Each structure stands twice: as structure tokens, then as C-alpha cells.
């Protein structure tokens, strides 16, 4: 399984010849990524007849390109209209949207594209070089360790709550409580389902996301002529190519930030079941913790946008590693790819590298080529995409409501989910009008069920012994890091105050 340059170099050139598959897949991916409710996974399912009909190599390249580009597409509405296209982009609007409102939507898009591409490319290369070792992560991060990883993400609630602690915490814990709706992970006892079968499997993410962010947004933006602030409108009118370049420079000058946050994404992506949303939240939280200017996060801070975008693209490379190396998909999209590969009679797992090395490495070269082609095609478009924010809210608000409600229907095809999105919309509207952070609620809804699932698994395995939480050395190291990372900002604050007092 060791990296072999002789295979890789010609493979890269060979993959480039498939540009005719990759470029349409990129555009399709950007579109489906941007519409809440559609994702790479369900698009691949929808397009199965097409994918299965293709030659296995073409099919794989198509899926990989779609996967990478949908991740990037999800960030576009998150930045421009405060609506994450998928749960993986849920941390993107935290700083992306404030930039847009200030008229810097074009810069924000460019920053997101560059950090996504750079993070994606870097993790692809790391994945290629370190695949056998990275695959081992899945053997060490068991439920106990994952509990701590989840807590890293959830501690972001406290961070968000910094401005009004009590309200922020109430929002976060309400989210956790809502996330706990549905059958428990062990005995499948239905809880707080209001009698709806549709809630047995928990609160579906897309309707929650659509309601909290999109529907509530639509009811808020009608207060203004456009979603831009007054100053923002002036800036937007004057914007030209220079703003795109400004964004590119801003992202590239934070190359080190891209490197380490995308690596967080890569490692989390390798763990089966963990996904882009947790990686993005953890990266954001870590980025803020180690920042010299934590108070700027949430106001349109560049690093607050770079971190989640590089991390969720790192996940993309990560989820494919366990699929290829041990035959276990790291996420939903990887699982569908497995179905397609199996249909073509390709066995994934260790044998793949012996029987079909070009295919195994081909996945990662396809990713690299996709990122390379994607940045070239999308960057020039950011200037035009950001114009969306100039559209009058008279037309924007109804459009947002109709299309995102439709999106909330798509994943499960239940009309119930549209009503649910509406209910979350009302909740989101009230929350935002009265100073409760919807992102804090969403973190609870997304991460709460995952945390509970890992927690119950650990508890069931240890038969109720709480000390199991500290039973592995890796977990203990993670606990210490967690405490440090939560406590660090406070310690820093304390020191700053002391210094000021001395002056």
C-alpha cells in the first residue's frame, strides 16, 4: 500500500484526460451542494442509473468530483444568504455571512474557495502518502474517544454564548434536548415524538437546518431592501475583480491556518460515522481558541471562515480512506460509492491495492484533479455569484422560503418534514429576534444525537460503569486537551486583565 510515484504521476496525467466528466460533475456538485436537501450522497443515488452505466473508472471519477464540488457548493449559500447547503457547512455562515452583509461577499466566497481547495488538495496528498497509517485511526477512536471529540464540537456552544452566556447556553441546551427527540440508540424507546412516526429516527437535520437558518432568515430580511447593510450596498456596487484577488490573498496568507484545520477534518473524516459538521465545528472552535483575537469571531473574521471550510473539505479525503483501506465507508457518500464499486465487481479493502492499484490511487488523483480544475472554474464566478445579494428581498424572501421548504422535503420525501421546517422557522425567527443564537441550537441538534449515541454505546459496553470514559490513554489525552482548549481562552483573558491592571 506504500506510495509509489511511478504509479501516481502518469495516473495524474491520465485522470486529467477525463476533464469532460469532471467539469460537468463539478457544476452539478456545486448546484446540488448549494440547495439544502440535496447532497452528494442522494444525488449519486438519483444518478445511479447513469453511474452504473459508466465504465467503473469514469463512474468513480464522476462521483469523486461530485463529492468534492458539492462540499464547496454548500458553502456558497451559507456565505451569501446565511443558509448552509448541507450540515457540513453549518459553521460557515458564522463568519461568512457577516462578511457578506458588510458587502464583502465576493471576498468571502474567494476565501472559502481557496481554503476549500487548498485544504482539500493538501489532505488529498496527505491521505495518499499516509493512507495505511491514517486508516489506523479508526482502530483507535472508539466510542469513548469519540465522546470527547464530540464535546470539542459541543463546547462551541459556550464559545458562541460568550456574548450573552445565559441565552447562549439556553439555546444550546434546547438544541441538545431537541436533538434527543426520537428512539434511544439501545432499546429504541420513542421519546418526545408527539406521536409522530416521522420523528422516531430523531429530528431530521435538513428541515432543522432549513427552518433555523433559511425560513427564519426570509422573515427577517424583508426588513431591508436587500440583505446588505447600507455601507455594504455601496461596496457591492463598486466591486470588481480586485475583490476576488483580495479574498485569494487573504486566504493564502493564512496558509498555516488552512493546513492545521484541514488536518483536523482529515482525521475526523477517517472515523466511520463522524462527519463534516463535527469537523467544521471542532475546527472553528479550535481556531478561535488559539486566536489572538477571539472576540472578532462571529463578526466576519477571516479565520472564522477559513477554518470550517478547510476542515470540511479535509473530511472528504478522510471518509474515503477507511473505504479503500479496510472496506468500511467513512460516511454516507462513501457508502454509496461502495455500492457502485461492488456493482462493478470491485472488492474494496486491502486487496484493492494489490488487484486494482490504479483504481485505489485513482480516487485520490481524481480528487486532486477535481480541486485543480474546480478552483480555475469557480474563482472567476465569485464576482457574479455575490451579486445575488443585491437582489431585492421582495423576490429573495419568497424564493428562499419556497426552494428551501422543497429542499427539506427531498431527503426523506415526507410532507411532514416541510411542516417541521416551518416549525423550526418560527423557532428560529423568535430566537433571532430575541437574541438567542440559532447556530447554538443547531449545534445541539446536530451533535447531541451523535454524542448520546457514542455515550450510550460506551455505557452499554461497560454496563453502566462511568469510569469507562477514562479507560483509554488516548481518551485521557483528549480529555486533557479538551479541558485545556476550553479553559485556555479564560486563562488568556485573565492574564490580559492582570496585565492591564498592572499598567
Amino acid at each position, binding site marked *: 500500500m506504500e506510495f509509489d510515484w511511478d504509479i501516481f504521476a502518469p495516473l495524474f496525467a491520465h485522470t486529467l484526460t477525463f476533464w469532460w466528466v469532471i467539469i460537468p460533475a463539478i457544476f452539478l456538485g456545486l448546484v446540488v451542494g448549494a440547495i439544502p436537501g440535496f447532497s452528494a450522497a442522494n444525488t449519486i443515488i438519483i*444518478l*445511479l442509473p447513469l453511474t452504473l452505466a459508466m465504465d467503473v473508472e469514469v463512474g468513480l471519477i464522476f462521483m469523486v468530483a461530485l463529492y468534492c464540488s458539492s462540499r464547496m457548493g454548500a458553502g456558497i449559500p451559507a456565505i451569501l444568504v446565511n443558509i448552509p447547503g448541507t450540515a457540513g457547512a453549518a459553521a460557515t455562515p458564522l463568519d461568512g455571512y457577516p462578511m457578506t452583509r458588510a458587502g464583502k461577499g465576493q471576498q468571502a466566497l474567494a476565501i472559502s474557495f481557496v481554503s476549500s481547495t487548498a485544504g482539500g488538495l493538501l489532505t488529498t496528498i496527505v491521505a495518499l502518502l499516509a493512507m495505511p497509517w491514517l486508516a489506523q485511526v479508526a482502530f483507535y477512536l472508539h466510542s469513548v474517544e469519540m465522546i470527547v471529540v464530540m464535546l470539542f464540537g459541543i463546547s462551541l456552544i459556550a464559545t458562541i454564548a460568550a456574548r450573552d452566556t445565559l441565552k447562549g447556553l439556553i439555546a444550546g441546551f434546547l438544541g441538545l434536548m431537541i436533538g434527543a427527540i426520537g428512539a434511544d440508540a439501545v432499546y429504541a424507546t420513542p421519546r418526545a415524538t408527539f406521536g409522530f*412516526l416521522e420523528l*422516531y429516527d430523531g429530528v431530521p437535520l435538513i428541515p432543522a437546518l432549513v427552518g433555523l437558518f433559511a425560513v427564519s432568515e426570509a422573515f427577517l430580511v424583508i426588513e431591508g431592501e436587500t440583505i446588505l447593510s447600507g455601507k455594504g450596498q455601496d461596496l457591492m456596487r463598486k466591486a470588481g475583480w480586485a475583490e476576488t484577488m483580495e479574498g485569494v490573498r487573504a486566504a493564502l496568507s493564512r496558509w498555516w491556518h488552512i493546513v492545521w484545520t484541514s488536518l483536523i477534518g482529515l482525521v475526523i473524516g477517517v472515523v*466511520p460515522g463522524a462527519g463534516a459538521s463535527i469537523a467544521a465545528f471542532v475546527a472553528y472552535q479550535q481556531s478561535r481558541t488559539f486566536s489572538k483575537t477571539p472576540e472578532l469571531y462571529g463578526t466576519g473574521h477571516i479565520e472564522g471562515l477559513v477554518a470550517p471550510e478547510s476542515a470540511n473539505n479535509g473530511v472528504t479525503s478522510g471518509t474515503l480512506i477507511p473505504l479503500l483501506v479496510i472496506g468500511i465507508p467513512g460516511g454516507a457518500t462513501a457508502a454509496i460509492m461502495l455500492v457502485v464499486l461492488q456493482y462493478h465487481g470491485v472488492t474494496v479493502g*486491502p486487496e484493492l491495492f494489490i488487484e486494482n492499484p490504479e483504481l485505489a490511487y485513482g480516487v485520490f488523483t481524481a480528487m486532486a484533479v477535481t480541486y485543480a480544475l474546480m478552483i480555475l472554474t469557480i474563482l472567476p464566478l465569485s464576482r457574479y455569484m455575490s451579486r445575488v445579494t443585491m437582489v431585492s428581498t421582495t423576490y429573495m424572501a419568497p424564493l428562499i422560503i419556497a426552494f428551501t421548504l422543497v429542499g427539506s422535503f427531498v431527503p426523506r420525501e415526507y410532507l411532514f418534514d416541510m411542516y417541521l421546517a416551518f416549525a423550526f422557522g418560527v423557532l428560529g425567527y423568535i430566537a433571532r429576534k430575541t437574541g438567542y443564537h440559532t447556530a447554538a441550537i443547531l449545534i445541539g441538534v446536530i451533535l447531541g444525537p451523535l454524542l448520546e449515541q457514542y455515550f450510550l*454505546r460506551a455505557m452499554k459496553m461497560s454496563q453502566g460503569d462511568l469510569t469507562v470514559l477514562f479507560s483509554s490513554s488516548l481518551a485521557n489525552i483528549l480529555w486533557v486537551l479538551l479541558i485545556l482548549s476550553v479553559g485556555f481562552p479564560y486563562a488568556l483573558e485573565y492574564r490580559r486583565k492582570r496585565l492591564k491592571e498592572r499598567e
Partner: protein
Amino acid sequence: MTKFWAPSRRSFVKGGLAAAGLSAVPFSSALSAGFPDRNIKVYVPTREGGGADRNLRAFTGVWKKYLKTNFEPSFYPGAAGRVGYETYMGKAPADCYNLLFGNMGPEMLNWVVKKPSFSLDDYFYFARVDVDPSVVFVSAKSPFRSIDDVIAEGKKRTLNVGTSRLAHPASIGILAVGEHTGAKFNLIPLSGGKNTIAGVVTGEMDLGVLPSGSVSKKGVKVLRSLLVFDEKNRLGARLSSFDVNAPTANDHFGTKLPPLVSARAFAIQKRAVDAHPDRYKAMNDTILKVFGDPDYKKAVLKTKAPWENIRYGDAAACKTYAESITAIGERFKPLMTGKKS
């Protein structure tokens, strides 16, 4: 988008993966008089792209040849299949144009755990397509070479067993073995076969239990099988450990367990059969022909499912199975619900 390049997803499904040649699918033969004069809708209570989906595509791909109509599957996963059943029983007209394709084992256990909103006498399974016995398996790297190693260790300490969910024939199987031998097993539901395999392969679980189809597909280099809950090990070396074929629980331990299997079958509302006995008969007659058709075998093998697991059962066989699994489910009910009843 799909329209321009290839047959669309749902019409494709109608055509069946089996027929595989990705040629355009002929439209419904509305020409023939009598039943059926339009497409038959099949409610599937599991996810699109899952095992039942593959199984159903292969079957209906051939069945449509004999019944001279197309099949439209629609998928209602959710609440462990309950959504599918409730939708079918609640909304589908009882006219023999609406069928359900379910998994008798886990789904009968669902009703043991919690009764549905409709009466269980209102529908019945009438054609079993396959039988997928439960298997006890370990990772290829596991120290356990045989089921005896597992039992010996299970007497010393409680072993964690990954399973897709508690209310599943496979879970009941390992519990019954524990009860018989005195070995201690702690079932950990991992929601789904893929997660269960992941839990076993990554070493978090000591062993796992799943239907044979998903275990044998991984190959013995990844997963070794130690025990089968069926009358015999029909898959032979594909379910083995160090070249020893997995024995059956009844042979090995002298237990008298019924086959603990997942069994996919077509179900129908009783009212539909009472109102249209002729239609019901037409379906049954044509189903029998599918099993003898070499195209069907080809289609099944194409899905990588073991052909040995394809075993037809009529309404009576389905009834016997449903009753036996319900009876054993009642016995282990407290362990499936966590409540002492």
C-alpha cells in the same frame, strides 16, 4: 438531468438491475385485458439502495416478464420499518395493485416490542423470496478461532457483541446461545449492518452477529464466521474460520432453535385478497415461475447475494415462520426492550 442521458432512476428500477443491459425500459403493457392493467406499486420499508432494494430489483426484473406489468417500488425507511408498514396499511388501496416487500424476521420482532396501529391479522406474507440465516462472526484479526473459544472466554468475562439492532433474529440467536452455555454476552446495537461490521473490524466489539449475506460478501480475509443459525450451513466455505465451515447452533450445542433468519417476502392486505381472489392467484402462479427462470439466478448472482439463500416459501411457510419468530421474540422480549415484563 437523468432523462437526457439514461433511463431515469425509477423507470430504471422498474427495469430491474437484473436485466442489467441498460437499455430503455419498455413501458407498461396496458394492452392485456384483466389483471394487471397497470403498474404494481411495491412499498419497501427500508432504504433505497439497501439489501431489500437489490433483492427486489432482481426479483421484479424477472417477475414482470410473467405478470406482464411493471413494478414501481417506493421506499419508506424510518422507525425500523414501521413507517413503511403504517403507510402501506394506512394509505395503499386494497386492490392487489399494492404490495409490500418486507423482512419478516426483524419486522415481526418489531411488533413484539411494540404493536402497530393496525391489526396484525389485516395483512399477511404470501411469498418468501429469500432466507438469510444469522451468523456469529469475528474480525480476521480476532483471537477467537471457533465458537468454542468464544464460549470459553464468555464464561470468564462478558463479551461485547455488535448487532444491527436488538430486535433482530441475530441478536436473539446469540442470546439463546448465551442462555444455553452460560457464556455472558452484552449486545451492543450499532444501528445497521455496515456499522456492525465497522465495530467488529475496528476491534471495538469482541464479535458480531448479522445475516449471512452481508458477512459472506466481505470474504473470510476480513470476517471469519463461527456459527450459523439455520438447519445447515448452506454457504460452506464462505462462512468459515481457518478453513473450518461454521457449524449450526443446533448441531453444535444440541439446542432446538428455529432457524433465526432474515426472510424477505411479499405481503398483501387481507382485504385485497378477499376482494380479488383471482388477482391473488395470478400473482402466486407467476411468482412460482420466477424461481425456475435461469434469468433470475443470473440477476441474483449479479447482486453478489448467495444464490443458496434464495428459497421460495408460500403463505403457509411464511405463517409458520412468522409464528415461530414471534414466539421466540416473546421469550426474549425483556432483553429487547430493557423492561422487565
